[in-house]
C-alpha cells in the first residue's frame, strides 16, 4: 500500500485562504490608519510578509501531508513545525463524518473526519479529497468499523 496525498488543488485552496486573510489584514491596517491614527507605510508590509510566509508554510504543509488506509488501521501524518503521525485502529472508530465548508465546496473538495472514543484532540481528519472519494472512504471506514464491531470500543 502506498502513501496517499491530498489532491493538489487543496494546496491552491489553502493559498486562496491565505490570500483572503492577508487582504483582510491589509484592509484592517488601511482602516486603522484612516479611522484611528495614521500609520507609517512600513506597517503595510506586514500583511505582505505574512502572505509570503503563508505561501512557504502551505507548501511545506502540503508536502508533509499523507495518509494510508492500511490493513487494520488508518495511518496519517501531517504538520510542519510539529510533525504528527497517528495510527487509528479500525476497531476504535466510533463514527465518521464527511464535511464540506463553503471554500471546500467552491474548490470541489471534501474532508473526512474519523472519531474515536479518545480525547478530543485525537480526532483524525483527512483533508483535500474529492467528494466521491470522500464518500467511498467514509463507506469503507464505516464498513471496517462495523466489521470489527466489538462491544463499545473503549
Amino acid at each position, binding site marked *: 500500500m502506498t502513501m496517499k496525498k491530498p489532491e493538489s488543488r487543496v494546496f491552491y485552496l489553502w493559498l486562496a485562504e491565505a490570500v483572503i486573510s492577508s487582504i483582510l489584514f491589509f484592509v484592517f491596517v488601511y482602516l486603522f490608519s484612516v479611522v484611528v491614527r495614521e500609520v507609517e507605510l512600513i506597517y503595510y508590509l506586514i500583511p505582505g510578509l505574512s502572505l509570503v510566509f503563508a505561501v512557504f508554510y502551505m507548501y511545506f504543509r502540503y508536502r508533509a501531508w499523507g495518509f494510508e488506509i492500511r490493513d487494520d488501521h488508518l495511518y496519517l501524518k501531517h504538520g510542519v513545525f*510539529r510533525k504528527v503521525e497517528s495510527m487509528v485502529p479500525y476497531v476504535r472508530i*466510533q*463514527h465518521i463524518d464527511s464535511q464540506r465548508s463553503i471554500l471546500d465546496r467552491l474548490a470541489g473538495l471534501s474532508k473526512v473526519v474519523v472519531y474515536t*472514543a479518545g*480525547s478530543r484532540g485525537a480526532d483524525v481528519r483527512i483533508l483535500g479529497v474529492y467528494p466521491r472519494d470522500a464518500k467511498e472512504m467514509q463507506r469503507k471506514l464505516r464498513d471496517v468499523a462495523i466489521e470489527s464491531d466489538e462491544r463499545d470500543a473503549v
Partner: protein
Amino acid sequence: MKLAKSSILYRGVKTFLRIGLLALFGGFTSFSQPGSTFIQSTLVVIALSLFLLLSSLAWEYLVWVNYNFYVTSDSLDIIHGVIRKNEREIPIGRIQNVDIRRNLLQRALGISKINFETAGGQKTEASLKYLDKAKAKEIQDQIRKLKSIKTEKRKKEIQEKPRTEKDISSGLSEGKLVFELDLRNLILFSIFSLDYRTISFMAVAFGFLADLIGDALPLDPFIGSLTWIKALFYILGIGLLAWIGGFFTNFSRYYNFKLREKEDTLEYERGLLNRASGSIPITKIQLISIEENPLKRLFNYSTLKIETAGYSGTQNQETTEAAIPLAKKKEIIDFSNKLMEYGNLEIKSIPKKSRKRYLLRYTLINIAIILIAYLTNTTIIEFNYQITLLLLPITPIAAHYKWKNKGYQLKQNHFISMNGYWNRKTLITPYYRIQTLINTQTIFQKRWNLKTLTLDTAGQYMLSKNPKAEDIDQKTAQKLTKKAYQKFKNSLKNQNQNQNQNQNQNQN
C-alpha cells in the same frame, strides 16, 4: 427521512427570539433619535421584528430542506448543512444511548428531540431536532431492535446479562471496606498537598498586600534593600498562606474518606461539612494515575487516581477524585495491582541528550527573562532586575529534575509512563484500552532526534494528559510504537476470547 415540518416553526421562532434583541435594539436607537415620535419608533420595532421573524423562518426552512437522515440496517446516517455540508455515519453497534427529550412547549406541539450517544467523547454525537412524537419513538425502537439483532448474532455483548440473585443480594450489602484515610494520614495529606493554583491566586492577592506593608515600613533610605526584603517577604508569605489554605480545604474535603468495593464498582465517600460520594466502575477503568509532589516523594507517599471511560464521570473533567488520597507508595502499588496486574513500577529513563536539551531550553528562557527584566528596568520602571540572575544557577538543577522524573516502560500487558516534577504522574494503562497511537516531533525535538509517543485512551479529556513517553530517541519511538501496536492487537484477541468464555460460562 425528514424532520417534522412543525420543527421549522418551532426552530424559526426560537432563532427569532435569539436574535429578536436586535429588533429591540433598533427600536431603542430610533427612540433616542431626536424628532422621532413614539409611533414611528414602534413601527420600526414591528417592521424589524417581522423582517427578522420571516428570515428566521426562511433560514430554518432551508435547514429543514437540507436535513436528511437514514436508519439502515447497520448505520445511522445524517446529512445536513445549508452552507457547510456535513454527512455523519454512526454504526448502529456503536450507539449506546438513544434518548428522547421533550419540554412543555414541544409536548404541546407534539414534537420530540432525540439524542444519540456513543462511547466517544463527552458530547452528544447526534441530535435530531425535532421529530414527530411517534416517529421519534419508532426510531428509538428500531435502533434498539437493530442493536439486539446484532448482539444476538455476535453473542459478544455481556453487558446486558441478567443479574442473578447473588448479584442482587451482594448489591444490597455495604460492600467491603478497602481503604480508609485515618486521622494521621488525613493530616499528612493536608500538609503534603500543594495546590499550585491557590499559590498563583495568592501571588496576585499578596502583591497588593506586600506593597501596602512594604510602603509602611520605615526603610525609605535603603531603597535597594527594600526591594529584596519585599521580594523575600512576598515569596515566603505566598507560600505560607497558600499552604495554610490548602491544608484546611483538603482537611475538610477528605475528612473520613472511605473506599468500598461492591461487586464491580469502587465507591467512595468523604467530607467534613458536605459528605460527597461517587462510584468508579472497575470494568470501565481506562488508566490509573499514581501522583506525588516533591513533598510526598520525600516521605514516600503517593496519591492514587482512577480514570474511567466517557460519560460515567459526573463531575467536571478538570479534577478527578482521588481513589486513595494518601498512602505509602508501596501500599498504593499493591492496591493498584489488584485493579490491574501490572507488576512492579520499574521505569526506564529517557535518553541523556534530553537532559541536555532541557538545559539548553531553560538557559535560553532564562537569558530571555534577564534581558526583558533589564530592558524594563532601564526603560519602563526601575526595579532590582538583578534578582532574575538568581535563576541562572537553578537551571541545571531544574533541567536535571525534569529529566529525572520522566520515563516509560512497556510491560507485558500494560504501558507505564512517568512525567512531571511538581506533580509527578505515573500513568498505567492496559494495551487494550488504547484508542490511537500518536507520534509527535516538534522542530526543536528534531534537532536532537527526539520524539514523543502518546497513547490516547478514552479516560482523558485532553490528549496531553494521556500516557506518553516524552523526548525519547526517534528510533526508540519507532520501535516502541510498533511493539505497543502489536501488544494492542494481541490484547484485543485475548479480550474477545475472555468475553466469549464468560459468555459460555453464563449460558451453562
